[in-house]
């Protein structure tokens, strides 16, 4: 996948919590990428096998009257791929503004 600003942003958001489930809206908020750009990226990641998706259990929803949401989880392959993508981005001057706050955050 070609490294773009949006891809790196989504990768950073996913890698910030690499073992947890990610939800579309939260991921869009956290990465700062519009859903029109983010969902095609997620779809490509699913196709590459970097992510798996699923639907929330009814038990998780509890009493909230809403339909189950779709979640995304990083696979081992995805963790490796996104790890190297982020590492590459750190070396690339194009992504410096994006990665600078990350570096200061530790």
């Amino acid at each position: 996948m070609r490294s773009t600003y949006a891809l790196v942003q989504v990768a950073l958001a996913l890698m910030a919590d690499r073992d947890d489930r990610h939800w579309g809206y939260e991921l869009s908020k956290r990465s700062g990428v519009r859903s029109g750009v983010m969902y095609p990226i997620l779809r490509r990641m699913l196709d590459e096998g970097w992510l798996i998706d699923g639907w929330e259990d009814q038990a998780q929803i509890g009493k909230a009257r809403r339909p189950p949401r779709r979640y995304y989880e990083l696979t081992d392959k995805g963790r490796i791929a996104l790890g190297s993508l982020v590492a590459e981005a750190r070396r690339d001057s194009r992504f410096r503004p994006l990665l600078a706050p990350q570096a200061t955050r530790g």
Partner: protein
Amino acid sequence: MSELIFHVLAWPTVGVALLVFGFTPGAVLRLIALVFHRDDPRRKELLAELHVVPRIERPFWVAEQLEVALFDVLRARLVIRRTEQAERDPWVLPEDGVLDPRAVEVAASGERRVRLTRREQRAAAARILAHGGTAWTIAKRLHLRYSVARALATSIAIKNGRD
């Protein structure tokens, strides 16, 4: 100040607020979801995501989804549909009034559907018959009704018998 509060809480204002932040986003989103293919999980995902979007943000979020649906999803679906339609449509070769041997060859092989002139159709049918085909083969490969194919086959046989 109290007048301002009164105006803000006036029924029309409350009604508009309910419409904009309550009813409308959900209703519009349901329409937007229809743009996605029936099997696309995004259709279900969109409707579920709306429930976690804060009410104040919903109109803007739905507007964003509308943009995505119109310019990405609908456009992609139209392109796919057009491509599929083009594949189904007969292949029209340049028509110059003369018998096009390539068109005849392709049509007779049944490789693709080709729009033929009457002369080309006859030549293709003759070619099929020469290769051991029947009226049924002609009908199938040239996309003709069986009765037409049979009439064509008979006419070719009679002409060949005369020659």
